[in-house]
């Protein structure tokens, strides 16, 4: 019978204890290295091929963009968002304002007008992602990042 411990039945007995030890060690190793994968996703943001760096900050006669400006307020530790001249507190209002502005461009037969995120370098990354998310909710895929302001000077070589 398989698994029988009777030495008379199976004269060539194999000592399985070292094998059990090794398998146990391997089990412990893989258990410790197990990390449940976080459900990650991505936003595609293709850079314009022909425009070049800094072109987003160039001045044109007609403003054909929806620019969301973002500033970091040191006193409150919060991010201030501004669409045009209007400061927007909550996400729902900002989403509606972006939608209205986009609809205006669609009526002008310019549906590819981008939303440009012009954020200060100290703004937390999640605030930028929030604005990108609001654009995606409105079905706007063309999102650009303004490259006008330089990265923080203290970061250069300071890491």
């Amino acid at each position, binding site marked *: 019978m398989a698994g029988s411990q009777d030495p008379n039945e199976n004269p060539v007995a194999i000592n*399985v204890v070292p094998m059990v030890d090794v*398998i146990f060690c391997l089990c412990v190793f893989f258990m410790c290295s197990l990390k449940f994968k976080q*459900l990650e996703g991505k*936003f595609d943001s293709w850079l314009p091929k022909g425009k070049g760096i800094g072109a987003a900050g160039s001045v044109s006669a007609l403003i054909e963009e929806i620019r969301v400006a973002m500033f970091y307020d040191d006193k409150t530790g919060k991010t201030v968002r501004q669409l045009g001249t209007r400061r927007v507190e909550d996400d729902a209002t900002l989403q509606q304002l972006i939608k209205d502005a986009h609809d205006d461009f669609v009526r002008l037969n310019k549906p590819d007008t981008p939303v440009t995120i012009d954020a200060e370098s*100290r703004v937390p990354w999640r*605030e930028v*992602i929030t604005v990108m998310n609001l654009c995606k909710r409105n079905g706007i895929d063309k999102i650009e990042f303004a490259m006008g302001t330089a990265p*923080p000077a203290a970061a250069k070589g300071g890491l």
Partner: protein
Amino acid sequence: MADKFKPPDVEENVGCNLIPMIDIMFLLLLFFMLSADMSQRDLEEVVLPQADQVKEDTKVRGTEEQTTVNVFHRLATGGFSCPVYSNAQDCRDLSHWLIAIRGKQFTTDTVKTQLQFEANLSLEDTVDPAAGKKLSKRKLMIRADQAAPYGYVQGLIQAAGEAGIYMIEVGAAAPPKP
């Protein structure tokens, strides 16, 4: 009377049968081996920002030409600690933020050289008429911590553009399902 308590002649086998335990341990080992995704070595511990419109990343990492850049806060080890970040607040101390590609750390200056090197590994065959040069087929995935200063990501996008990498992806986490 004494015969009444005499032990039976047949020797009872009380040995432990190890075979079922070995079977189970083999199964456990197989499960842990298969679930250990070694391809995630290029991913640092990053708290990604949440977004409900995020596109699920279905590709298996390493199957296409992609460079993953991580922007993350320094871990609280070796006597270092940041009470601001530990209390889930936005740490604005730039010296606490790190950039890493495949586990190797870079500064905002040295990462430019690395991105140029990565871009040159997979250049397109033809010169792009709009850009006037050969662009890179490589994708750049930016996995930045939700509290990371935007300036870091901005610098990376700028460096990628200069290196000829135009396919940028930014990482975000899907919110937990209710």
